[in-house]
């Protein structure tokens, strides 16, 4: 096994981003005495990425080798597959790695009442999505043929629900799982055990770690792994439900609708899914879940006998129109299931907003640099940070107030939230406040996979990416680019007007390093002076 001293004695703090995955996995190594403190933030790959399990094993082996099999702190930002899957996919390797502290957001704390409410809501919404998905699958067997990519027709209208993709965030999508497992090596690596879900992984992590700590925003700065010069300022998730539910940049009355949809008003939809037992309230009068009661409804599966003339006539009339073969395209058997998507989307947004967002301060004092790891925090989470403030004794003995503006202004490394989607990096209350000339961004995105024909996700979001390039002077480290690419960028742009000068580029090029294993490129290191 790799030994501790394999990592040469570092004078610098390095942040390693694992490459070529749509998912987060960041390893921070900070000098501590004669050795290093190892901090891992998330390890996951979006469900459906080909060869995901294979890749996870390579990543985990690298983590093991690099850390000597010991993580001082493991931070899991939120319960999504693309932040968690690696711990299950590389289970055997991970089992050998010792974990000191597991850091989770307060939303995962079972003793917390609000957290429990949220967890219950999530459980129910997830059940709805699973049921909707199952219902849609059951009905969609006579789906339309796949659109021919070479066809001259420009209007492609695939018949498709989004449930599967949403379930993929929880490791629950059977289709996406299948895609991964077409790769035989991956199958061999996992050895096909019981299907892991985000919930079960989190559970296993809790058991694996020596201790578990839950964090609320605004607590006193937390020394990371006992280091006084690496402290964590916990920014989110907010305790205020209104912030938690705010996911889109839209102003106005958006929250009202979302809360209205929350409550128990989804039960009516659930009742139709036959979700008995999901909630007591669905087991009420069966008659009440039908809009006109039993009397008016003529069931599709007609009773063979005992039907009067009037009903027979109604059935004949109905079938003559609705079941007419040449009007098959006008049927609406599945449309009502789309309502489940709304719920699913809300669930997904809310989960992203429960991200444990942390600003790491390197060193002390008013010029200390900051690394920002917001998880996938969305607008609401970000906006809530404005309410936080810390007070510290300065060197001259006076009190110094540290607010979010201050932390963002000192940020020199920004892990871009939610794979650089449009709603996870606010403009005024976010990126525009990051004014440090040394700002560097890390973007865990694989554009080719996110934008492909099946997904069509607008990640990275072009205008955000463009602004990041501007703010960082093109020092945007992407999971789908290699270090070599920066050489070209530097040569092309250095010393031009409004660009970084050659010296700064050289310093940056010296700080980034390509990490490979036997099979090829695996990660990118970015080093910061301590």
């Amino acid at each position, binding site marked *: 096994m790799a030994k501790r001293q394999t990592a040469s004695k570092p004078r610098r703090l390095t942040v390693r981003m694992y490459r070529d995955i749509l998912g987060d996995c960041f390893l921070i190594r900070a000098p501590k005495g004669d050795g290093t403190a190892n901090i891992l933030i998330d390890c996951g790959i979006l469900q459906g990425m080909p060869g995901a399990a294979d890749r996870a094993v390579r990543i985990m082996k690298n983590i093991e080798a690099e850390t000597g099999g010991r993580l001082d702190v493991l931070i899991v930002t939120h319960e999504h597959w693309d932040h968690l899957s690696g711990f299950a996919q590389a289970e055997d390797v991970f089992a050998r790695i010792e974990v000191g502290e597991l850091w989770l957001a307060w939303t995962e704390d079972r003793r917390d009442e609000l957290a429990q409410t949220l967890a219950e809501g999530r459980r129910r919404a997830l059940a709805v999505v699973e049921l909707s998905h199952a219902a849609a699958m059951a009905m969609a067997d006579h789906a339309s043929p796949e659109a021919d990519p070479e066809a001259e027709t420009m*209007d492609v209208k695939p018949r498709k*629900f989004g449930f599967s993709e949403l379930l993929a965030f929880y490791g629950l999508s059977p289709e996406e799982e299948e895609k991964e497992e077409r790769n035989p090596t991956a199958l061999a690596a996992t050895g096909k055990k019981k299907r892991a879900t985000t919930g079960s992984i989190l559970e296993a992590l809790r058991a694996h770690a020596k201790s578990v700590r839950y964090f609320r925003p605004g607590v006193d700065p937390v020394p990371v792994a006992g280091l006084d010069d690496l402290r964590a300022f916990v920014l989110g998730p907010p305790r205020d439900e209104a912030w938690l539910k705010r996911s889109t940049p*839209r102003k106005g009355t958006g929250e009202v609708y979302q809360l209205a*949809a929350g409550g128990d008003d989804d039960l009516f939809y659930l009742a139709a899914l036959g979700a008995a037992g999901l909630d007591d309230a669905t087991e009420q009068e069966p008659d009440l879940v039908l809009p006109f009661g039993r009397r008016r409804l003529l069931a599709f599966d007609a009773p063979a006998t005992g039907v009067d003339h009037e009903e027979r006539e109604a059935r004949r*009339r109905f079938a003559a*129109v609705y079941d007419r073969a040449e009007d098959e395209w006008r049927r609406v058997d599945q449309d009502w299931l789309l*309502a489940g998507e709304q719920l699913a989307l809300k669930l997904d947004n809310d989960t992203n907003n429960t991200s444990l967002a942390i600003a790491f301060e390197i060193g002390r004092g008013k010029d200390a640099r900051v690394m920002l790891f917001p998880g996938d925090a969305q607008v609401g989470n970000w906006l809530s940070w404005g309410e936080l403030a810390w007070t510290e004794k300065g060197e001259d003995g006076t009190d110094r107030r540290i607010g979010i503006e201050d932390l963002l202004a000192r940020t020199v490394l920004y892990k871009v939230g939610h794979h650089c989607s*449009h709603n996870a990096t606010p403009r005024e209350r976010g990126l525009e406040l990051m004014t440090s000339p040394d700002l560097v961004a890390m973007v865990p995105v694989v554009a080719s996979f996110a934008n492909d024909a099946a997904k069509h996700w*607008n990640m990275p979001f072009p205008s955000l990416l463009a602004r990041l390039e501007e703010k960082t002077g093109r020092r945007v480290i992407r999971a789908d680019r290699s270090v070599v690419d920066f050489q070209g960028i530097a040569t092309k742009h250095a010393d031009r007007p409004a660009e970084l000068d050659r010296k700064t580029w050289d310093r940056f090029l010296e700080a980034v390093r390509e990490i490979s294993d036997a099979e090829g490129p695996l990660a990118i290191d970015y080093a910061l002076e301590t």
Partner: protein
Amino acid sequence: MPAPGSRPPTPSVLPFRRLRIYAFDPSASLDLQLAVVNEATVQIGGEALEPGPIGEYLEVVDVDPASGGFYAPVDLDDPVLLVQNGAAPSEGNPKFHQQMVYAVAMTTIRNFERALGRKVLWAPRIDRDEKQRYVGRLRIYPHALREANAYYSPDRKALLFGYFRASRTRPGHNLPGGLVFTCLSHDVIAHETTHAILDGMHRRYIDASNVDMPAFHEGFADIVALFQHFTLADALRQQIEQTRGDLGRRSVLSGLARQFGEAIGHYGALREAIDDLDPATGLPDPTRLAATSEPHDRGAILVAAVFDAFVTIYRSRVADLLRLVTGDGGRFPDRDLHPDLVARLTAEAVKTAGHVLRITIRALDYLPPVDVTFGDYLRALITADHDLVADDDRGYRIAFIEAFRRRGIFPKGCRSLSIENLLWEPLETQIDLGDLLKRPFGHEEARERLFEDARARAFRLQRHILDNREKIGDDAARAIGLRLDDAAPKTIRRRRDDGRPQVEVHSVRLADRVGPDGQREPQVVIEIAQERRAYRSAELQAEMDAVGRKPGVRPDFVFRGGATLIVDIRTRRIRYAIVKSIDSAARLEAERQFRFGGAAEALGATYFGAERQREPFAFLHRML
């Protein structure tokens, strides 16, 4: 065996049919003031109906997939129902639901036909080999969904209505957790029917190519729903009584979809036609439009502008009556009104609402075939009204311009907001339209024949333009927004046979309208368009414009351009060409910005891009 429902329309024995509906929605029956006027009777054509109802324009299919069944169809030709104007309004009788969606949708159709001077045709179905198939009947599913939603499905040519439980915490007038049917709201039905009719006229309007397009679809549908309400005289009379004649005040009429709004936890109606005014100046905020991108919010600004124009016109029409009563033409009485005065005010309001409804619908013919903006709509309003009503002695056009200006709605490329400048420009060089007008436009009775005739004319015109592209010339083609020359960007869609730029003639339709002085204005409206493959970045676009296709590179969206040509049948001249150029770099850049650069894109678009294309209104209408 002929399929049921396909029997040829037989001359009906009924000169007209009267049907009962809720004037507002069921919740109004629980309001002491409104209960008496909530039951309205509408009069529609007396076509023969099959159970459903299934008629010439509509087929109501009452399937409820979430409940696993369907409801027996209502037979409106049943003598029992005929003698009592249909079933009585009731939430618990699905047959009344079927009757109400039919009655309100038919009323909407009739309003359009009167304004446009022709029959309403639904959008054709485009089948796999791109052939357009006639769709005779719009399908209406009154209970298709279990959610607070209702939408028009362009894919199915159908209206889908949902039912849901009212909010338990803030139910408004509804029973907490009680059932709400969207198909029982006059406004919701009129709104969705309008989407379907608009799609039938401009099928490219459902592709959102700029921020105004989804908003226009929504706003316009609200305008029709709103003013259709004003034609229900009983409800209007009651409201005039209550507001003492001042329709500019918030009332049940100025709100849309009350029950729907209350049920999902708002305090009032879903949307208001009256916008918030600045308390200092008493004027709306003209900068709000620029800051609003959500389609309904943006559409609401359009509705507010039209409503503002309506109130201005109404006030000027009743100024004389007010002077008689209060001694001030601008002041409404502060005491209850005399019933005679109420009757006179109601008559004026109904008349004004009818005019405004017709003006706003008529303008649809004067819109570009693609990429419409609110500014275009203002120009269309003014031009359409100018063509039909030469003498604007009541100042209708000024009222519209003023109301739009106050909300920051300006057309691009206009020197000023004078009426002369807002009229669409006449076409300088005429284009030979072949034999398009040689054959007289017969007044076909059957809508299918009308459709086939228009298809045939469109096809002949397309052939004519393609065969004579040299004769027409590049400059003339560019003047109507097209590129027919071989040097055109290679991304413009080509014909398969000769590889030269393709042109589509979307529609050739007759507009035979009669003005207030009895003069006829027969015109033919032609929509011509081209398609162009467009890409995420300007660099890639430039490259692909030069090479056409490249393996592995797929277009990110389809860019469209072309023109609407208004042809005067009597002079056989193209009177206006309303142009959106296919090779306009500025427009292409604006659309690219809108599609990929906007900050207001909902997450739904990120995850459900594909499904959203198929059901654009399903996402738009949900919870809104």
